[in-house]
């Protein structure tokens, strides 16, 4: 599909990186301010969707088959499951326990295993939404009767 006009392309060049950084900020500060893994993940996906819509799929040379986004999603899901099982193996023998020592309330490195959960759930949500968008809207000519 074709891209948009020149004004949109120039504005997207300036803004898309800042939206991505804002998504990372919302994810990492999930245990201090409102936000968390899900909101930050969807914001990160939004910056990718903005790039694809502004420049068009011909310019970005998107392949007419599966791209690499499902690999990120599956890897992030496996790491989330591994973090949940790690309480069983390493710490006390309880599944899904918060076993890293918690620091003082209000610092960036605190709250045990919570920031790690936030980061990997955020990556998984972002990859899911970009995959859904690509499958529904961009990859169209592959379906045959």
């Amino acid at each position, binding site marked *: 599909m074709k891209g948009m006009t020149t004004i949109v392309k120039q504005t997207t060049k300036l803004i898309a990186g800042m939206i991505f950084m804002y998504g990372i900020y919302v994810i990492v500060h999930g245990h201090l301010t409102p936000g968390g893994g899900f909101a930050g993940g969807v914001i990160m996906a939004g910056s990718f969707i903005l790039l694809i819509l502004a420049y068009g799929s011909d310019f970005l040379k998107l392949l007419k088959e599966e791209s690499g986004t499902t690999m990120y999603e599956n890897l992030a899901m496996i790491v989330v499951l591994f973090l949940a099982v790690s309480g069983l193996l390493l710490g006390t023998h309880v599944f899904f326990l918060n076993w890293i020592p918690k620091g003082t309330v209000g610092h960036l490195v605190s709250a045990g295993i919570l920031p790690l959960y936030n980061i990997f759930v955020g990556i998984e*949500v972002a990859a899911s939404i970009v995959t859904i968008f690509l499958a*529904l809207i961009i990859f169209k000519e592959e379906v045959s009767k």
Partner: protein
Amino acid sequence: MEIAISVITGFMIIGALYAIHARDLLSAVIACGIVGYSLVICFLLLKAPDLAIVQIVVETITLIIMVAVVLDSSREEAFTKLDRQGYFTAITGIVIIVVFFYFMKISVASLDPFGEGTLRMAHSYIEGATEKTGSANLVTGVVFDFRGYDTLGEATVLVTAVLGVLTIMRIKGKK
């Protein structure tokens, strides 16, 4: 506070009624966006900033997908006359709505007045939350620590939905 939320909910009902009866499908989808974005204002008035952030970005993504689907297929709803099957459907709808009204009256009378804390689990979650989880955001502490299984199940649901979409659209076709 109650009056403000009532006014906004009345606005949402008007938007929803228009979205159902519009003939142009693009107008109906944008009217569905009215309901979604008014819900963000309701969440902010009810002191829930986490929900407001998630709802506003998810509503934007939903609108993008719906508009793309509508532009790709037909743009107008076909005009239909009321025949016998249409009458039967309308009467069934009215009967169901009347039955629902009766049960609504019973259940609203049994709720506490708006503004007093209804649930009793709040005390045991708020009392020792900062010592037990170590996080300053209580909602994140409840979602990831006290109720971690729900989050695990929701991540699984997202992966399954992506699997379903890729299978239905059949991106890698047979040669």
